[in-house]
């Protein structure tokens, strides 16, 4: 972040040119963006107002009927509440755990490089595959988790952590925190590294304790990185699909669904395109709100700095 902003200032010659001369350079990118984002958004909104059949052929304007049907669907409300828990719970624990972790791997100690490399694994690995291995580790009879708990004398009977209604959703959330921490920690680490060393040293010369230095000097300077990490996480976690899909399919019933997996299920399992697109539009608006918050807050911190 620091490097990006200093680089921008150092960029020398920037010329003002017409849109027409920009097109050969940015045109292909623009076309790609239209194809992958604009078109699907327009299509999503359009069919949410139509009476679409399962085959997807008939398209009559249907007003807000799909939205009314969705709101009348009793399954929606527990799913929506669970989505709030999903998003805020995961982002909260991810950030709370990543802050000290970033601080830790910012310190100098032998083997730090390898600790950072270990952290790359859940980030680079496919979330689908990470979810598969956690499913296996947490398996009631064959999983190493229950084996260890049994050997420690903490449980007598095998517990089916992934499918047990009491634990299922929390297990999914824990896996989501696990895969979110590496990216978050790296963003915070970059933020810590952008803090000039002399400020920190000056503080310790002035007799500030480690905790005081962290709270009063590092943490405020870290605010921008924290903001970016939090908001990108909010979006990613809200959109998160593979963990739930691989581990529980949102089941039993809709017991572990979020609005994202619920929308997918409605469309592709239950062929309820109408309600699914209405929910899709709702999900889209949620993301739009988070993105505008992101733009507003990052701009605010920027002018302030």
């Amino acid at each position, binding site marked *: *972040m620091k*490097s*990006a*902003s200093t680089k921008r200032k*150092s*960029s*020398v*010659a*920037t010329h003002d*040119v017409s*849109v027409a*001369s*920009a097109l*050969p*350079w*940015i045109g*292909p*990118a*623009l076309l790609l*963006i239209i*194809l992958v*984002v604009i078109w*699907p958004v327009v*299509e*999503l909104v359009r*069919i949410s107002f139509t009476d679409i059949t399962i085959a*997807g052929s008939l398209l009559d304007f249907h007003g807000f009927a799909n939205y009314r049907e969705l709101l009348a669907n009793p399954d929606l409300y527990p799913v929506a509440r669970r989505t709030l828990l999903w998003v805020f719970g995961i982002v909260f624990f991810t950030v709370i755990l990543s802050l000290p972790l970033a601080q*830790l*791997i910012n310190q*100098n*100690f032998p083997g730090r490089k390898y600790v950072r490399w*270990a*952290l*790359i*694994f859940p980030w*680079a*690995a*496919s*979330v*689908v*595959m990470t979810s*598969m*291995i956690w499913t*296996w580790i947490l398996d009631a009879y*064959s999983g*190493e988790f229950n*084996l260890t708990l049994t050997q420690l004398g903490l449980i007598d009977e095998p517990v089916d952590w992934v499918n047990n209604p009491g634990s299922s959703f929390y297990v999914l959330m824990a896996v989501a925190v696990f895969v979110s921490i590496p990216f978050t920690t*790296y963003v915070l*680490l*970059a933020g810590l590294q952008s803090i000039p060393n002399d400020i920190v040293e000056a503080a310790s010369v002035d007799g500030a304790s480690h905790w005081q230095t962290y709270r009063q000097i590092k943490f405020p300077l870290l605010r921008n990185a924290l903001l970016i990490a939090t908001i*990108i996480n909010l979006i*990613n976690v809200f959109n998160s699909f*593979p963990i739930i899909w*691989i581990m529980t399919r949102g089941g039993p019933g809709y017991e572990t669904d979020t609005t994202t997996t619920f*929308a*997918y299920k409605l469309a*592709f399992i239950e062929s309820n395109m109408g309600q699914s697109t209405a929910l899709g539009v709702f999900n*889209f608006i949620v*993301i739009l709100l988070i993105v505008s918050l992101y733009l507003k807050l990052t701009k605010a911190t*920027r002018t302030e700095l």
Partner: protein
Amino acid sequence: MKSTKAKKLTGKKVVTISVAYLIAWFFLYPYIHMFLTSVRTHEELYAYPTTHFPQVWQWRNYLDLWDNAPIANYLKSSLIISISATILVLLVSLPAAYFLARYRFRFRGVFLLLVLATQMFSPTALIIGIFREVDFFNLLDSYLALIILNAGFNLAFSIWLLAGFFSSIPAEIEEAALIDGCSRVQALRKITIPVALPGVVTAIIFTFVAAWNEFTIALTIISSVDKKPLPVGLTQFIGQYDIAWEYLFASTIIAIIPVVVLFIAIEKYLVGGLTAGSVK
């Protein structure tokens, strides 16, 4: 400097190191367990109670798996899709990033917002729209659709990162080349791109890995077994009555190790491309 630090191996330092290694182990643990599972025998996997370590190390699993699941097909699909998407991203993002770094134009802000949109809106949120669009172009169950979609959703990282690199290169160097009779494209190819090479390599690796791991779009638009990429293909194991965990995890090890190595190679540039959208 370093030696004085090494000498001060105080109690506090020992605690720091121990905690750090413990955390490292925690993040590695599932992948270590994945490996240990991949070399067990099928009987052992279903034995109760289970054991922490394999009783028999059956390395043969890594050879047998090719005959027991269409892994070669999945691998081929993953390679085709990821390599093509990466090439497409480079072709599209190089000129766009260069232009953004060098010129100001009307609607520049709008364009930047659109680029940001590709990063913020995951395919999952738009999946029904995407499905209908792909159907409209008659591209369901095709590599082409997956290649275009993977390229599109990973465009932002390359554009942010490369624009940062390009703007760090003084325009004077290029202008000098222009005076020497190079065309603008030649100047770009011979001077600017080599300097921006670390950025280009990072963009290549990041896009490749992202496409390699993509799940939702492939799950939704690919139906033939021989066209499924690894993450989708491997989920076929899960539905079966007698899950061949040893082959499943041998396959995931094969799929994960190369991309982790690639990510480690670009470690120090990763954050820049993912968060730069905010500072532009």
